């Protein structure tokens, strides 16, 4: 082969050293070379199409596609060869009906805690995750991050090969090496396991077996997602381990101390549902709960707060102590922060005292243990225990404070007592606090091995890397926050011959050939009484193991005497990122491009500062600052966040990765470089402006409802008291006169008449709907540069607005899908009739007919239409692994056509076929849109408006129902319920607002 011809190895070699933005550029350059063209012509004649579509890859996703075209080549080696006879089905296999998806119950875990899902499988190919209604941590909903898991399954950057150092290897060699390392250490002396938080009963029993065999071996846990402070706080309060489980549906008053309880932590979906159920309001006679939120940076939960005060982290702790004292708890002395007024504090105390047994105080994970202990003591003092708060035995197999465990492990690695280390899942080289310098400690360990999903920072630093199978490829089990077990079942064979933790653990226990299925089954066989087959079928089918909820813990909180955190002029709060969490999802494009709540920032993390701090330090959004804490520095861009507490900086972890993959490496700044293992809450820090500038890509530039000329009544909101004043026609719902008038008669819908209503009272802006829609409708990502230009493709977006003062604004989230206007302005202006109305009232988009004039978008007052400015989606001619994540029921759109929300018309079509097969009408609730299904608070309701008994018709009958921009007479099918707040009547100001 001549020099001018490339082969795959060379291409991989050329690309291997490139990452992040550089990577795309180099791929581009590579694609332009003559050798590559020759290579393409030779290997993919169709890809060298005349339109050059496969080569002009300026934007992100097309490049991603190319990376997959290359990465996936090794997997393409299974063409039906002439001598290998392929045989078609004679009898159709059970269950499989071509075109009909199947759903399998399994669970996704965060920090070890399960959230139940139903995975949709199209002919053996998982394409979408829905919540499992039977699972206590899902209740049918999913978080945004869960929706994106399918993309990670097909990520070609996943760890694909066994390796020893740089040399490729096999499972046989790797397991032999593990056994050899173990054999060299009598009794396992010096052998250490590092896992993430383990809730899996099977894995726990395997580890137990291992430690029984090798009593001198040690098991450590480190998981940045693990609620260390909650565990430490419970120990502080009770002297023993217990998990607080809240029943917010019974709570009339909720006090959140820096707690984003609806959007973080293992019980977030359950808490969000219960809180929303107690808050939902349709009629003025409905009851509402009340939320007091004291926090540093705006959280999703706080968007529903009736009273919110922005406090820096140490002030939250001080407030907790003051509140505890006022409620009769023995607490450390603290002065109430000045930002909390006397009136508010007194009203809060009175409200809590009046709601003994129906209130709850929740401490956030970012607060130190003492605040958690105070919260336990307050709940006890208020008589909430057993009512709104229940204490259960921990779900974790071995509850621990992970930062202490990691500190002990690093000490052992440094002093040479750890001679062999096997890391499961965890990525401590990246996620360990910088103060521990895990990487150099790791270098001192003679034998290291790692089972991991990605060739990440830790994988690059260990001797042996073992590719891990994705949770959708493996048998396992895991507990939810309340202890309920899910047996996780695989939907597909492991792509890259990866192993599960069970299989590696089995190898350590001496059986390198055990299969995950047998390991999990055998564990449960030994632990189940009665018919095992019945148990197994029922448990796997349901996604939960009956009766596995943890037992109650009988605990009593004592006096809290621990010291409160000391205040600093500037306090640095390092938090898990809402999308990337601790960084484990950094290579997931859907999550990278998911706009953050409030800022709508994508593809970056930023140091959030409050307007007061920004003014004091003369900072503006986009300025680079040097953050210094505990003797370490980090440069980060600033985002001035209205409603952020003064005297504090919030930085999301999970960014600035060096070995995340093609998507995530080099994106953002690495907050772990400032993390200190001795600090349990916020740390003192200094902020210095460097003078440099940085471009941040946000999908929303204007967030203020005022300051735009006259007030725009886009988000309509009022208080419960205002609602009660005019129960039939609340003024705040219709602030401007509206009259329906049209020259043309209305079309009569004889069949179905689809409609949607979105309840702004319970929308937390968590973005689950956005990713759910992306997954359901094959929506491409476009990359930072395109987002900066205003070309993101999300069909449903969550608009974030502020109202009121910049220091203490009110927050509004408004999910904005296509409004499906009855008199749609987009329709008459399309010159080719590519967007038309159907007989059920949907404003449908005919991609094939679209020529791309974009007139429809100009005439759309809601700006919900999205245009394929470039070839964002993968072309059929270069289909790759990533296209396996596509929903086969939805067209993939090409360059030059408009697209938009269709009310999940494919789901309506499926229901229509099912109904017509059974000769009946579609039942209410049979069509559930992707956004609706995902919504943790059930803020979205969809159905047939012609069916007067339907849920959506009932909700739309609420006096709070209104149309967006009703004066334009577009008659949208999507309507909104005005946001109602329930401020404490004792705190109403002259305007009747809280």
């Amino acid at each position: 082969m001549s020099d001018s011809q490339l082969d795959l190895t060379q291409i991989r070699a050329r690309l291997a050293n490139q990452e992040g933005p550089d990577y795309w550029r180099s791929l581009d350059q590579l694609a332009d070379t003559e050798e590559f063209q020759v290579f393409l012509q030779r290997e993919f004649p169709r890809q060298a199409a005349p339109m050059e579509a496969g080569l002009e890859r300026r934007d992100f996703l097309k490049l991603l596609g190319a990376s997959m075209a290359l990465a996936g080549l090794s997997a393409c080696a299974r063409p039906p060869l002439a001598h290998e006879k392929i045989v078609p089905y004679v009898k159709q296999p059970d269950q499989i009906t071509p075109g009909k998806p199947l759903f399998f119950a399994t669970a996704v875990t965060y920090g070890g805690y399960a959230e139940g899902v139903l995975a949709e499988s199209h002919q053996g190919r998982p394409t979408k995750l829905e919540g499992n209604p039977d699972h206590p941590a899902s209740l049918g909903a999913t978080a945004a991050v869960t929706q994106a898991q399918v993309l990670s399954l097909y990520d070609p950057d996943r760890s694909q090969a066994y390796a020893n150092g740089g040399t490729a290897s096999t499972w046989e060699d790797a397991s032999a090496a593990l056994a050899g390392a173990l054999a060299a250490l009598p009794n396992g002396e010096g052998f250490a396991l590092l896992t993430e938080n383990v809730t899996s009963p099977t894995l726990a029993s395997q580890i137990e077996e291992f430690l029984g065999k090798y009593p001198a071996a040690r098991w450590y846990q480190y998981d940045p997602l693990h609620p260390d402070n909650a565990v430490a706080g419970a120990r502080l309060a009770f002297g023993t381990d217990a998990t607080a489980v809240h029943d917010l549906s019974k709570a009339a008053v909720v006090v959140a101390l820096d707690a984003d309880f609806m959007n973080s932590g293992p019980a977030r979906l359950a808490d969000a549902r219960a809180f929303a159920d107690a808050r939902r309001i349709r009629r003025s006679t409905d009851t509402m709960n009340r939320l007091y939120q004291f926090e540093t940076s705006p959280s999703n939960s706080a968007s529903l707060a009736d009273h919110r005060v922005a406090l820096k982290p140490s002030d939250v702790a001080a407030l907790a102590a003051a509140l505890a004292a006022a409620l009769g708890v023995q607490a450390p002395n603290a002065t109430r922060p000045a930002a909390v007024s006397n009136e508010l504090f007194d009203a809060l105390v009175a409200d809590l005292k009046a709601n003994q047994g129906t209130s709850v105080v929740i401490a956030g994970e970012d607060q130190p243990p003492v605040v958690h202990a105070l919260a336990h003591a307050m709940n006890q003092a208020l008589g909430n225990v057993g009512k709104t708060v229940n204490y259960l035995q921990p779900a974790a197999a071995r509850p621990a404070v992970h930062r202490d465990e990691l500190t002990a492990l690093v000490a052992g690695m440094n002093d040479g007592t750890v001679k062999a280390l096997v890391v499961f899942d965890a990525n401590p080289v990246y996620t360990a606090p910088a103060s521990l310098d895990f990487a150099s400690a790791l270098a001192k360990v003679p034998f290291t091995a790692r089972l991991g999903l990605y060739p990440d920072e830790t994988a690059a630093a260990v001797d042996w890397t073992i590719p891990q199978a994705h949770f959708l490829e493996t048998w396992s089990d895991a507990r939810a926050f309340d202890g309920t077990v899910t047996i996780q079942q695989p939907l597909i064979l492991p792509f890259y011959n990866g192993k599960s933790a069970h299989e590696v653990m089995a190898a350590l226990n001496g059986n390198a050939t055990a299969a995950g299925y047998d390991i999990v089954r055998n564990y449960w066989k030994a632990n189940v009484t009665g018919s095992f087959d019945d148990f197994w079928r029922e448990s796997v089918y349901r996604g939960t193991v009956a009766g596995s909820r943890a037992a109650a813990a009988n605990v009593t909180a004592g006096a809290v005497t621990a010291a409160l955190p000391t205040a600093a002029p500037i306090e640095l709060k390092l938090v898990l990122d809402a999308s990337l969490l601790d960084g484990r999802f950094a290579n997931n494009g859907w999550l990278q491009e998911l706009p953050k709540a409030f800022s709508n920032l994508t593809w970056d993390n930023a140091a959030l500062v409050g307007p007061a701090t920004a003014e004091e330090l003369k900072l503006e959004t986009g300025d680079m600052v040097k953050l210094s804490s505990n003797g370490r520095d980090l440069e980060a861009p600033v985002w001035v966040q209205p409603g952020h507490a003064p005297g504090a900086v919030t930085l999301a972890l999970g960014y600035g990765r060096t070995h995340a993959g093609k998507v995530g490496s080099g994106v953002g700044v690495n907050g772990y470089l400032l993390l200190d293992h001795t600090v349990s809450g916020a740390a003192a820090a200094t902020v210095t402006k460097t003078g440099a500038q940085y471009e941040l890509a946000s999908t929303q530039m204007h967030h203020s409802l005022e300051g735009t000329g006259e007030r725009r009544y886009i988000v309509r909101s009022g208080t419960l008291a205002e609602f009660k004043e005019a129960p039939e026609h609340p003024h705040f719902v219709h602030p401007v006169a509206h009259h329906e008038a049209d020259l043309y008669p209305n079309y009569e819908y004889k069949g179905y008449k689809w409609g949607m209503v979105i309840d702004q009272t319970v929308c937390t802006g968590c973005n689950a709907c956005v990713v759910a829609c992306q997954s359901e409708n094959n929506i491409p990502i476009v990359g930072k540069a395109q987002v900066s230009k205003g070309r993101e493709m999300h069909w449903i977006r969550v608009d974030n607005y502020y109202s009121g003062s910049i220091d203490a604004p009110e927050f509004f989230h408004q999910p904005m899908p296509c409004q499906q206007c009855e008199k749609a302005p987009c329709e008459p202006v399309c010159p080719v009739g590519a967007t038309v109305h159907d007989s059920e009232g949907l404003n449908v988009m005919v991609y094939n007919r679209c020529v791309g004039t974009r007139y429809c978008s100009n005439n759309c007052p809601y700006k919900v239409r999205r245009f394929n400015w470039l070839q964002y989606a993968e072309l059929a001619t270069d289909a790759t692994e990533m296209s396996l994540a596509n929903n086969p029921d939805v067209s993939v759109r090409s360059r030059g056509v408009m697209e938009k929300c269709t009310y999940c018309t494919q789901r309506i079509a499926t229901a229509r076929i099912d109904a017509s097969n059974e000769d009946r009408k579609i039942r209410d609730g049979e069509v559930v849109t992707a956004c609706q299904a995902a919504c943790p608070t059930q803020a979205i309701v969809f159905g047939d408006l012609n069916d007067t008994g339907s849920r959506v018709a009932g909700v739309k009958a609420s006096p709070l129902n209104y149309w967006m921009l009703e004066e334009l007479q577009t008659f949208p099918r999507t309507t909104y319920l005005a946001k109602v707040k329930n401020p404490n009547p004792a705190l109403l100001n002259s305007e009747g607002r809280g």
Partner: protein
Amino acid sequence: MAVTARKPKAPFRETNRVIRPGETYGGIDDAILTPVLANVDKTPAWWWIGFTISAAVLVVYLVSVVKLITTGIGIFGNNIPVAWGMPIINFVWWIGIGHAGTLISAALLLFRQPWRTTVNRFAEAMTIFAVVCAGLYPILHLGRPWVFYWLVPYPNTMGLWPQFRSPLDWDLFAIGTYFTISVVFWFIGLIPDLATLRDRSKTKFQQFTYGILSLGWNGSTKAWQRYQRAYLLLAALSFPLVLSVHSTIAMDFAVAQLPGWNNTIMPPYFVAGAVFAGFAMVLILAVPLRKALKFEHLITLRHLDNAAKLMLATGMIVVYGYFIEIFTAWYSGVEFERYMIWNRMFGDHAIFFWALIFCNFVAIQPLWFRQIRQSPWALFIIAIIVSIGMWLERFVIFVVSLTKDFLPSSWADYVSTVWDWSLFIGSLGLFSTLFFLFIRLLPSIATAETKETAFHDQHHGSDAFERARMEYFNAEEPA
């Protein structure tokens, strides 16, 4: 020749005279046709320089088009909400420019304004070339330009028709009609001149080419009679286009409910703006052209003066439009409309609005003075300012309105890209290439018609003729 020392107070007196007195039929033919028939080696250097630059810029256009079609319209700065950006600005800008040509050739013919005769030919050429430049934009800026013909109502196996309610479909008909009628009208007008060229040709090639093009013209009375009738009929067909084409294009905006677009004044306001921009372009072309081709005696100060007057009149109509837009927004009481005007005047792009007010309002005020109207280079500069102003006007109406509409969440800025500009500058190259070819290969003044205006003063007696001659020379600008 001795001229009197006494200079008339007014440099120019209104008469019905169109061209310099004393012109003869042969003289006019010589002046107009000789450069056309000259050998290649006799082509003046200024033409070669101009043509080469134009052709080079045309290459930029072609490169941009290839890039656009292979990569996608994402190479432009457009986004959501600004789905229409520079290509549409340029489209409307070019189509507006064309209007003056049609107004001169058709409307003034019907209104029996004989002064049009020496400017109508190149003004019509300008129209056609501007429509070519304009008409390519809506196609190129489609997401999928290769299926632009779906806008055409043609019978097809799918039984699909375009959506006749859409103004964009009517755009296609308007532009198509405009281009067709303009080309036919222009060509019919050319026939007698082509015949003269044929008769004066020295080479076989010229004789053959011009012979084919002149369609067997024999100059008989019957031919002349039919020619005149056809010409008048076509003029009557073209005249409504002056009003209808830009009105249709204005509908693209007036029909939308976007604040800043949804305005019933749009059609007349656009037509006035088009004529305004068109006369600016006529002046931009006429001033150097009469100098380069030594046509000062044919395209006289009177022509420039008339064009300037029309520019002033239509310009003030446009200014009235600006005022009414502001008034309507305020009077409507609609917060979105009011904010749109506020945003135009004081928002992020306020500089464009005030620049536009300067260009289209302040800069044309000197035209109230005859001295300015009869100063070719002053007119040239004002015309360029007006052309820029009209471009800015479209930017303000189209883009600034789109950047901030109803929902603040969707507001976004618009930043044009290199490709936006290369396609625009390239289209200037396309226009000027065509124009240079035109002035070299075809008579840029309608010879036959101009000859009708010769010997004008003889009809008023020899005395008047001599006096007018003297006045004329006194009035001529310094060389």
